[in-house]
């Protein structure tokens, strides 16, 4: 499997941003016809490593060899010209252009010097078919596609450049499990055809299934490279975080003897054609999971509860009284007390250019008011408290954009904890976040529930639903097709219900 001269080799690569050393000792060697996984917590230097390889940033020290000859890329175009193509975690699609335009963005088929639309569309169709998503219309605008479809387009676009080295940076984080299956087949096929694939993911079972070799990074340093099967999952996780993971999920408390009255319930809730008669209830101290394939109405359901959707039908009740939250402002105020941790932390969760402190107090400004002015001292002490409680690694006065993904997500959650919500809605809160931070978030959710908060958790990671939730409502086509409880929450049951292949007790449409 290992050739004498690897396709790509990095030796002692160093990258500093000002005083911060993001990559202290980057070593890597990967050969043709192999899938190489790069593992590490957020902030371990994986992203910087990828950026160096794909020409986004230039290394300060060390050398990079392609086919045994030293190379240096001054921009992504340089790297692409040498056959290195990256599928970025932050999508590199242009929202206002069509799918076909995006796939052919840099080197479209041309006739008489002009872009040949017809040929371009045919090529897009071929590439989409190759990735296994023939259903996407190449004429559709990327803006109009859901996130999971965009990610598949992104992969098709990368393949269109005939890469020798394909880098997938958290490329599966937004995919449905069905797409992950398609992608796995595709990657194994590409490997047989001789492509070298660099695979970055937090999903251990995908890595176990796909990768030939693993390289682990911690604190910007390369720790070890080994054949995937040489070490067990626990060992690999230990290498990544340098400490024992005793228990991934906190223990569930015993169910109360008499069930508590629900604090939030919906009755036949509908919106456009995305929500069709959802009736669910959640009690104080309960974590209710929302599961199913991606894009089956879970996001819309949470948005509807938080006042983000206009024109809902049916009823939402808080404490048994019908309410119609008309905006997030109304939803968060007493007597509702609802908070939503949104799907996209960079656009909906944070004001990236503002400081950590300003972000943390953004949802609760009226509390820190004295007369018409903000009381800076009280604001500061509240910020200090929440940073300690959440163990956020950050300087309060720096822009929140400078934090790692995991710490950014902690800021989003911390912002709403300051508001002491009675009902907490979370939309896939651990997407693209490292193992350590995930566990902290799990512990925090359990603490909040124990404190009497009612929690609705939508997650694309089945293990989270299994490990955290008392009940899981499976969405399919805007309906709840099945509710799993207690020991009935198994991976098989979730997957089966998500595909709607079990006979349901709900009346069919």
């Amino acid at each position: 499997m290992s050739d004498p001269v690897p396709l790509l080799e990095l030796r002692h690569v160093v990258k500093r941003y000002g005083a911060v050393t993001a990559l202290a000792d980057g070593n890597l060697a990967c050969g043709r016809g192999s899938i190489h996984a790069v593992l590490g917590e957020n902030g371990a230097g994986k992203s910087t490593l990828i950026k160096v390889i794909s020409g986004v940033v230039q290394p300060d020290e060390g050398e990079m060899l392609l086919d045994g000859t030293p190379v240096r890329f001054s921009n992504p175009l340089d790297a692409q010209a040498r056959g290195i193509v990256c599928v970025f975690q932050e999508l590199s699609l242009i929202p206002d252009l069509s799918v076909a335009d995006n796939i052919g963005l840099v080197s479209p088929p041309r006739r008489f010097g002009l872009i040949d639309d017809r040929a371009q569309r045919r090529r897009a169709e071929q590439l989409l078919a190759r990735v296994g998503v023939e259903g996407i219309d190449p004429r559709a605008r990327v803006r109009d596609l859901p996130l999971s479809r965009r990610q598949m387009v992104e992969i098709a676009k990368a393949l269109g450049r005939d890469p020798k080295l394909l880098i997938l940076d958290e490329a599966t984080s937004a995919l449905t499990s069905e797409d992950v299956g398609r992608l796995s087949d595709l990657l194994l096929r590409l490997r047989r055809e001789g492509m070298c694939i660099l695979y970055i993911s937090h999903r251990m079972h995908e890595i176990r299934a796909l990768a030939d070799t693993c390289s682990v990074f911690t604190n910007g340093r390369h720790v070890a490279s080994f054949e995937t099967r040489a070490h067990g999952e626990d060992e690999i996780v230990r290498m990544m975080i340098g400490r024992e993971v005793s228990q991934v999920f906190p223990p569930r408390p015993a169910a109360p003897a008499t069930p508590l009255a629900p604090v939030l319930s919906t009755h036949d809730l509908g919106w456009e054609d995305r929500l069709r008669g959802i009736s669910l209830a959640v009690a104080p101290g309960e974590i209710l999971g929302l599961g199913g394939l991606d894009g089956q109405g879970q996001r819309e359901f949470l948005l509807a509860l938080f006042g983000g959707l206009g024109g809902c039908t049916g009823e939402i009740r808080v404490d048994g009284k019908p309410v119609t939250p008309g905006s997030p402002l109304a939803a968060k105020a007493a007597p509702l007390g609802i908070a939503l941790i949104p799907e996209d932390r960079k656009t909906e969760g944070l004001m990236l250019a503002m400081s950590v402190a300003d972000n943390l107090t953004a949802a609760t400004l009226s509390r820190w008011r004295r007369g018409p002015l903000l009381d800076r001292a009280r604001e500061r002490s509240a910020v200090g408290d929440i940073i300690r409680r959440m163990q956020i690694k950050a300087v309060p006065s720096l822009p929140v954009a400078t934090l790692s993904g995991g710490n950014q997500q902690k800021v989003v959650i911390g912002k709403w904890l300051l508001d002491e919500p009675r009902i907490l809605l979370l939309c896939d809160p651990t997407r693209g976040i490292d193992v350590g931070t995930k566990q902290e978030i799990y512990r925090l959710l359990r603490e909040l529930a124990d404190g009497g908060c009612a929690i609705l958790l939508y997650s694309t990671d089945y293990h989270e639903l299994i490990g955290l939730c008392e009940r899981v409502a499976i969405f399919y086509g805007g309906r709840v097709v099945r509710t799993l409880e207690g020991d009935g929450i198994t991976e098989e049951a979730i997957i089966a219900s998500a595909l709607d292949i079990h006979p349901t007790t709900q009346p069919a449409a």
Partner: protein
Amino acid sequence: MNGSDIRLFARHNAIPLLAGAVFAAMFVLYLALQPRGVTVGTLVTASNKGVLLALIACAQTLPVLTGGIDLSVGAIAVLANCLASTLLGGSGLSLVGGVAATLAAGALAGGFNAVAVVWGRLQPIIATLATSSIFYGISLLLRPDPGGDINDDFASALTGDIHGIPTTLIILLAVLLLFWLPFRRTLIGRGVYAVGSAEAAAYMSGVRIARSKACAYVLSGVLASLAGLLLTLIAESAQASAIQAGDLTLNAIAAVVIGGTSLFGGIGGLVGSVIGAFILRTIGDLLFVLAASPLWQPLFQGLILLAAVSLGAIPLLRNRNRLESFR
């Protein structure tokens, strides 16, 4: 084109199509109320006024598509006007040279903007505000007093009609057909949209960002100088007027927005801006034939502009997902 192609086209071009319908209605009304009836003369006059603003609106559209703006388009037109008034007195080759020199001056001015915005990394709004003053300053030096010496035959040929079709309209159509339609399908044209829609994503995809942006400003300069050239031929004189430069710039921005180009970049095109410019010009003419007092004209013009821009906001009202309003 099959049915689904047409539906997709209509959905992606809703605002320009609507603007086109509004313009058609306004222009038919204007022609119907026109006391002297529809003659080639009325069409030529309407075309000359409309095409002038339309070209400047086209010039403005390119930088706006990249997510920038060019506050100097009016000043470049005035500069071209003043320059042309000193170069278009002769005949034959000297005329051709004069036209070429005027357009080259526009390209140079646009190039100056491109250097400031693309390589100087200055914010377009402030960089072009500054260069607009520079261009106006040069116009003043070129032509301290109004006037000019222009070849009469050339001027009447280009501002008259060919078989009843206004010549200026033909020039505008030539710009759209021979420049814009092919340009959209070049890599640079695609890059203009990509940069305006998502600059970081375009960079990560290896799009040549600087080249596309710079081209947008240079071509903007050329189109603005073409407008200045027409202005010279229509007026047969030139004046270094800061008021006119500002007026043209602001009306061009209004025309761009009415035509459905997003000020955030990435969406829209020249055709919409041309329609927007025609709508703006027809407002004035309509008020005139309706015998409204000239005192009322600016007020009406403002109200109608506001109404037109509100049309573009209608899709927002239909947004059932409230988060969509912020995209």
